[in-house]
């Protein structure tokens, strides 16, 4: 299935990826090519087939208890910006 430019722009916005104007044409072409390839699945009749998210089932659950924590500084060690023990982001509330 061929995507139009507006759809490519919409997907990029959904994925929170800034796409430069010059990238739009090649992206439109390669995304359309990949979707054309995967469209092959439409040939198959899968009526009534149970979809599987993975190959395993019935795995044990661990006990619902705290097993980790108290490591704020280690969590913040890789933060691009932190202050007073918190991550910081641009202002979102005026």
């Amino acid at each position, binding site marked *: 299935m061929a*995507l139009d430019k507006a*759809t*490519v722009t919409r*997907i*990029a*916005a*959904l*994925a*929170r*990826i*800034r*796409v*430069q104007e010059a990238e739009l044409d090649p*992206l439109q072409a*390669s*995304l359309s*090519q*990949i*979707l054309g*390839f*995967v*469209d*092959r*699945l*439409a040939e*198959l009749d*899968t009526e009534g*087939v*149970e*979809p*599987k*998210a*993975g*190959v*395993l089932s019935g*795995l*044990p*659950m*661990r006990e619902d208890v705290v097993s980790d924590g108290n*490591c704020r500084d*280690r*969590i913040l*060690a*890789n*933060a*691009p*910006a932190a202050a007073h023990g918190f*991550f910081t*982001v*641009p202002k*979102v509330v005026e």
Partner: protein
Amino acid sequence: MSTLNELTLAAARDGLRRKDFTARELVEAHLTAMAASKSLNAFISETPERALAMAAQSDARLARGEARLLEGLPLAVKDLFCTEGVRTTAASRILGNFIPPYESTVTANLWEAGAILLGKTNLDEFAMGSSTTTSAFGNTENPWRRRGDNRPLVPGGSSGGSAAAVAARAALGALGTDTGGSIRQPASFCGIVGLKPSYGRCSRWGIVAFASSLDQAGPMTRTVRDAAILLRAMAGHDPKDSTSVPVAVPDFEGALGREVRGLKIGVPREYRVPGMDPEIEALWQRGIDWLKAAGATPVEISLPLTHYALPAYYIIAPAEASSNLARYDGVRFGLRVQGDSLDALYENTRGQGFGAEVRRRIMIGTYVLSAGYYDAYYRKAQQVRTLIIEDFAKAFAAVDAILTPTAPSAAFPIGEKMEDPIAMYLNDVFTVPVNLAGLPALSLPAGLSADGLPLGLQVIGRAFDEETVFSVGAALERAAAFEPRGPRG
């Protein structure tokens, strides 16, 4: 002692225990080999000081007679495994300066078994690729060259740095990860052995996630025995990974001597794809003949959905990737590119932090999961996955293992297939179905192409029956007598 790096992992283990040489000498030989093969760009980060410190500890234990499973054996680790205090990049700009405050379970298992870290190897960015040419840290070169042609070749991917390091004798063995062929295809391209274990055999905890229902860690080595040794140390149940399966870890090395006489070996007719390279077809036939000569019975089988595995994979893997990679938002770790709003910060960070192939796959994944397309793409692919799992289950009711080629070609020159994503994706046509079904599969070098490049065969087993895979692999290895010689020799 300059040739210690030529030893197999098993021979190095035995030599250390006999005190023929020390762990320090073994590490030094590998550091020399790493320096000599620097132009391959197999490593993103080298950790020589840490390697020498670990060697000192191993030598002390060896002297006390307290050697553990992998005591003193220097290994390389794909830069997708988090290593505490050692930069872990996933070959991405977005994680370019990330220093994990924790250790992945699989690497922790290796260090507890006495292994030594030489460095972190290059890969396709976030393990998305089949050529190790999408890394933010440059291409890795295959140590092999075509006869009479000096163009640098890709090592395959995504675990191309690990494969190149092992082939170049810069590590006794290495860790890779395999989501659609990322251990087996580079193993085939570089003339080494690579195993993707059963899904759930090795913990995924602390491995940078690509597609969580498909990713699996595995060993890359120069012999089947070495892969068996390494897997034993890597594997095991981990409560921190809910998809890690609580089953005992067998002594895989013990399975190597098992007879293949009487085993039924499936040969799937759908893998004879149109336009198949006659060299690959001949190699496959040789493999069938070798197993027949060893007393196994080849059986033609059908895996009717084979043709649909790659399209299903290219919906499922990007869908999972788009979800997994949502965490790279410029807030908690990794690259941040400023913007005048929070959304602008996200978009700038992700637009500049991810390379072209990763951006493309995230967008495909976002699209197939988006409202209105979920059923037509993602749900459909999950249904096809069910059918592929059933195909293999039917086949394994009649056979003990399946033999196929690993890849449709030998290594190709760097730069080829770069413009056409589908041509690149087709590298994984024989390996992807195995990931969708969660099965174990081994690639081993079985011969050379007419122009002198290694070609691999793939042995697929039932879930959690790596032992049969190893025994069939060992029989093929004996018959192929592929000399793990220097690739340039």
